[in-house]
């Protein structure tokens, strides 16, 4: 089953910038307004039902200053303000890569500052190709690599959910798409092997694991091998960035969600000669940027994914 982009956009437009909660139940997608989501009172990422609440932010591209968004720091700060205004303090934030724009000098410092400004219980990142292209990931690992393996992959558990951070950008320039590599796939197999199929899994990664649009590098060459390791689990949510737009696909028990950027939009797959910053009228920019809130209610079933626009 695949939700088309048109269906998603139609539904998102109906909520006109308020954000939408996507809930998957028995294979059926439903949505509701962001304002109704997460109406819980407990702190530290735990909702009233004892579930888990966290936030995804992506593609901050700090250092980008061209026409598509001359002030990516300002829009990133707006995202931070939205996170800090949430009623329930998120358990943690996941940043799904392209923290910086091509490792511009000082950009990693700025991103670290932004992450520290967030009122969240923890901070987890994966690199995008912009974060590693100049030095193969040396600076990224020096700053964010503590407790990770290889090029930055790692996993952790929270509230009964198993989180897996994958890195598929290090060989981007030769693979032309995302690539995980055999060492990381071997690690993933071992990481998952003893886990019960009933445990919810959340994977976060920069480039989509599935073939969104390989001609533009929006795919992962060995992503299917990772997905094969995940299929036996009853609830798998894969969160990615890279393409700067909301896109969703459901494949059995595996749901894929691509997130908006906080910096600039990109064209829909195939809608332009190539990928790259898309300039939209300034008054509409914030409707193309955003962040994502994810709620896990602790009962069997899917995670509720809320895509909130900046304006």
């Amino acid at each position, binding site marked *: 089953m695949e939700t088309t982009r048109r269906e998603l956009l139609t539904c998102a437009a109906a909520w006109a910038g308020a954000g939408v909660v996507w809930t998957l139940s028995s294979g059926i997608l439903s949505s509701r307004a962001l304002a109704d989501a997460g109406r819980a009172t407990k702190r530290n990422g735990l909702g009233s039902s004892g579930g888990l609440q966290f936030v995804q932010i992506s593609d901050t591209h700090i250092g980008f200053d061209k026409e598509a968004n001359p002030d990516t720091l300002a829009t990133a700060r707006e995202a931070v303000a939205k996170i800090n205004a949430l009623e329930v303090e998120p358990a943690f934030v996941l940043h799904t890569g392209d923290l910086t724009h091509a490792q511009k000098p000082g950009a990693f410092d700025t991103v670290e500052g932004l992450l520290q400004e967030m009122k969240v219980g923890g901070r987890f990142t994966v690199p995008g190709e*912009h974060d590693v292209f*100049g030095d193969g990931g040396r600076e990224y690992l020096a700053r964010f690599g503590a407790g990770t393996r290889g090029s930055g992959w790692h996993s952790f558990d929270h509230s009964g959910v198993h989180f897996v951070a994958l890195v598929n950008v290090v060989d981007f320039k030769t693979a032309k798409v995302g690539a995980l590599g055999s060492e990381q796939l071997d690690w993933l197999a071992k990481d998952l092997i003893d886990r019960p199929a009933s445990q919810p899994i959340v994977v976060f990664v920069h480039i989509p694991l599935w073939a969104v649009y390989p001609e533009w590098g929006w795919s992962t060459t060995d992503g299917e091998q990772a997905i094969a390791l995940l299929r036996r689990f009853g609830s798998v949510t894969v969160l990615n960035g890279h393409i700067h737009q909301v896109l969703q696909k459901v494949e059995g028990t595996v749901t894929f969600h691509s997130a908006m950027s906080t910096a600039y939009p990109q064209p829909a797959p195939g809608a332009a000669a190539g990928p790259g910053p898309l300039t939209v009228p300034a008054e509409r920019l914030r409707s193309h940027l955003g962040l994502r809130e994810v709620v896990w209610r602790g009962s069997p079933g899917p995670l509720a994914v809320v895509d909130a626009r900046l304006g």
Partner: protein
Amino acid sequence: MAFGRHGGGSAALCALLVMAVRASAAADPGAQIEIRGFQFVPATVEVRAGATVTWVNDDEEIHSIVASSFNSPGLDVAQHFSIRFESPGTYEYRCALHPQMKGTVVVR
């Protein structure tokens, strides 16, 4: 192989002029490749051994030039990168950030 990169604005213009003067003394004036619209234009250039090839980024996006034997830093708008090719051969390259962008330098 010799590498060079220069900043944008007037510094880039001066550097280009200096390079033009140097190139005029060489046997082969070399080649300039423009990066625009996420493409290398022209995608294939042919030069003689010892010639300098210069890439100039006209896009409002950072690009780079990466091949098995050379690697540029990220080039912002108006920045350029030069290499002198000493040995004959066919050099295929890509942009590390947008690997669908590719080009070839043929050195005779």
